[in-house]
C-alpha cells in the first residue's frame, strides 16, 4: 500500500489531468462546471499524494520519455515546487468554487476549459526542470491568462488583455533568447546540468540580462509593472484572483529558481541583487502610493499587488548575511499573498456583484450588508498589511530580521513605510464598512458560496501565521535555497 503511494507518478498526472479536463470541458460544455470542479479537487488530492511522496522519498524526478537530461525533458519537484503546487491547488479550489457561482451560461463554457489549461500550465511550470520547457509552459500560461482576462468583454478588459498579451510575449521572447544563448553556450537546457557546466562568461551575463528582463516583465516588477493594474483590475473577478495570486508568482518562481541554481553562484555579489532590491523597494513605495490614490476598489487591489511583488525582491540583497531568514520570508510572502490577494479580489468581486460598481467612496451602501465579505476583506487586509497574527506578518518578520541582521536600514524603512501605506489603503476601504448608510435598492444577491470562499481563503492567510514551523520545514526538502552549503 505504502509502495503504491510512494511510487505513483503524482507529478505527471498533475499535468495531464487538467489538460484532459480542459479537453473534456471544451468537448461537452454542458458538463463543464461539474467536470471542472471535479478535476480541480482531484488535483488537490494529487498534490497531497505528491507531498507524501516527497516527504518519504525526498525530491521527485521524472525523466519524460525515459531519456533523461540532456536529451529528454525532466520533471523535478522539491519542497519549494511542492509548496507552489499546494498553494496553486488551494487557491485553485477556492477560485473554482467561486467561479461555479460567478460564471453563467456561455461564459462558464468558455471559462472552464481555459482555467483548467491554465492550471495545467501552472502545474507544469512548477514541475519543470528544463528551461525550454518552461518557455512552452509560459506561453500556455500567458495565452490562457490573456484569454481569461478578455472574457470580461468590456473595452477596458480588451485593452488590458491586449497590453498584457504584448508584455507577456515580449517577456517570453527575451527569455527564449536567453535560453538560446545558454543552450549554445553549454549544450543543455536542463537546469541541473547547466549548474554543473556553467561557468562565468559573457554568455551567462547576457542570459541573465535577457531572461531576467523577460521574467521581471512577467512578474511586473517596477518599472515593468505597467501592464498589471489594468489587466488585474478589469478581468472577471475569479480571473483577477488567479492572476494576482498565482500567475505573477509563477514567473517569480522561475526567476528565483534560475537565480538560486544558475546565476547566483556565478555572478552573485556583483550588484545584481542590489539592483533587484532597489527595484523592489521602488515597487513597494510606488505601488502603495498608487493604491492609495485609486478611486476604484479593484484597481486599488491591483496596485497593491505591484507593491507586494516588491517585497519579494527585497530578499535578494539580504541573502548574503541572512539566507535562511530571507528565503523563508520570500516563501512565506508568496504563500500568504496568494491566499490574501485571492480573498481580497473575491471580496471586491462580491461587492461589485452586489452593488454593481466598485467606486470606493460609494461602498458604504454595500459593505455593511455583506458582513462575510467585509470580514474576508478585513482578514486578508491584515495579512497584506503584515499585522499579526497572519502569514503576512511572519513573512515580514523574517524579512525584517534579515534586513536588521545585515544592517540594511534603508530596506527596513521601506518595509515599515510600505506597511503603513498598506494600512492606509486597506482602512480607506474598511472605514466604509462602519458608516451608516440608507438602504439602497439597486442590489443583487450574492451567492453564499462566493462569500464563503472569500472568507475561507482569508482565514487561510491568517492561519498561515501559525503554521510557520511545518511549512518552512517542508520547503527545506531538497534544499532549494542552497542553505545547506553556507556561503562565505
Amino acid at each position, binding site marked *: 500500500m505504502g509502495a503504491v503511494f510512494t511510487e505513483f507518478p503524482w507529478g505527471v498526472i498533475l499535468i495531464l489531468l487538467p489538460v484532459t479536463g480542459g479537453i473534456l470541458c471544451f468537448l461537452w460544455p454542458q458538463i463543464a462546471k461539474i467536470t471542472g470542479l471535479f478535476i480541480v479537487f482531484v488535483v488537490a488530492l494529487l498534490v497531497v499524494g505528491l507531498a507524501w511522496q516527497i516527504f518519504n522519498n525526498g525530491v521527485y524526478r521524472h525523466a519524460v520519455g525515459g531519456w533523461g537530461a540532456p536529451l529528454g525533458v525532466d520533471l523535478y519537484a522539491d519542497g519549494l515546487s511542492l509548496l507552489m503546487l499546494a498553494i496553486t491547488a488551494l487557491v485553485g479550489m477556492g477560485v473554482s468554487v467561486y467561479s461555479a457561482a460567478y460564471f453563467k451560461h456561455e461564459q462558464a463554457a468558455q471559462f472552464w476549459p481555459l482555467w483548467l489549461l491554465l492550471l495545467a500550465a501552472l502545474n507544469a511550470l512548477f514541475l519543470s526542470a528544463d528551461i*525550454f520547457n518552461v*518557455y*512552452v509552459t509560459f*506561453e500556455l500560461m*500567458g*495565452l490562457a491568462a*490573456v*484569454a481569461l482576462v*478578455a472574457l470580461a468583454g468590456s*473595452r*477596458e478588459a*480588451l*485593452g488590458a*488583455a*491586449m*497590453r498584457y*498579451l*504584448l508584455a507577456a*510575449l*515580449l517577456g517570453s*521572447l527575451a527569455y*527564449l*533568447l536567453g535560453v*538560446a*544563448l545558454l*543552450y*549554445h553556450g553549454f549544450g543543455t537546457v536542463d537546469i541541473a546540468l547547466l549548474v554543473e557546466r556553467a561557468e562565468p562568461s559573457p554568455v551567462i551575463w547576457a542570459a541573465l540580462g535577457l531572461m531576467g528582463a523577460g521574467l521581471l516583465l512577467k512578474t511586473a516588477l517596477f518599472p515593468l509593472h*505597467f501592464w498589471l493594474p*489594468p489587466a488585474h483590475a478589469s478581468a472577471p473577478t475569479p480571473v483577477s484572483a488567479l492572476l494576482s495570486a498565482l500567475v505573477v508568482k509563477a514567473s517569480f518562481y522561475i526567476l528565483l529558481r534560475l537565480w538560486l541554481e544558475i546565476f547566483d553562484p556565478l555572478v552573485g555579489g556583483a550588484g545584481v541583487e542590489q539592483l533587484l532590491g532597489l527595484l523592489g523597494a521602488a515597487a513597494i513605495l510606488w505601488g502603495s502610493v498608487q493604491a492609495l490614490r485609486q478611486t476604484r476598489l479593484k484597481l486599488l487591489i491591483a496596485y497593491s499587488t505591484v507593491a507586494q511583488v516588491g517585497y519579494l525582491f527585497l530578499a535578494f540583497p539580504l541573502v548574503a548575511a541572512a539566507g535562511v531568514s530571507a528565503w523563508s520570508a520570500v516563501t512565506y510572502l508568496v504563500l500568504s499573498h496568494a491566499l490574501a490577494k485571492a480573498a481580497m479580489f473575491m471580496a471586491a468581486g462580491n461587492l461589485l456583484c452586489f452593488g454593481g460598481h466598485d467606486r470606493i467612496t460609494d461602498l458604504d451602501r454595500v459593505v455593511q450588508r455583506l458582513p462575510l465579505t467585509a470580514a474576508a476583506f478585513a482578514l486578508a487586509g491584515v495579512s497584506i498589511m503584515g499585522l499579526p497574527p497572519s502569514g503576512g506578518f511572519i513573512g515580514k518578520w523574517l524579512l525584517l530580521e534579515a534586513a536588521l541582521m545585515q544592517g540594511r536600514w534603508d530596506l527596513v524603512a521601506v518595509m515599515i513605510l510600505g506597511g503603513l501605506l498598506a494600512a492606509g489603503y486597506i482602512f480607506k476601504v474598511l472605514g466604509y464598512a462602519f458608516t451608516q448608510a440608507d438602504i439602497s435598492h439597486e442590489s443583487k444577491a450574492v451567492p453564499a458560496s462566493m462569500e464563503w470562499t472569500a472568507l475561507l481563503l482569508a482565514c487561510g492567510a491568517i492561519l498561515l501565521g501559525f503554521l510557520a514551523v511545518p511549512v518552512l520545514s517542508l520547503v527545506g526538502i531538497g534544499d532549494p535555497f542552497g542553505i545547506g552549503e553556507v556561503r562565505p
Partner: protein
Amino acid sequence: MSTAFLYALVGTGLFALGLYALIVHAHLLRKILALNIMGSGVFMVLVALAKRTGDAPPDAVPHAMVITGIVVAVSATALALTLMLKLNAKSGHAELPDDRRE
C-alpha cells in the same frame, strides 16, 4: 566569419529591430508584426548557432525547438489579431488606450 555566426548576428539584429518597432509604434498590427520579427530573430539565433558542427549535420534539437516556437508564435499571433479586431470594434481604434487618459 562562419555562416553560423553571420546568421546569428542577423538574428540579433532582427531581434533589436523588432524590439525598437514594438516600443515606438502605436498601431497594434504593427506591434504584432514587430513581435513576429523579434521571434524570427530568436529562432535565427537558435538555428544558426546549431550549425557550428563543421561538416557534420547540424544539431537537430534547436531545429525542433524552433518548429515548436513557430507554432507557438502563430497561435499567439492569431489570438493577438482577434483581440485587436475586437478592441477595434469596441473602441474604433487599433491602438492601446494611453495610460495617461485613465
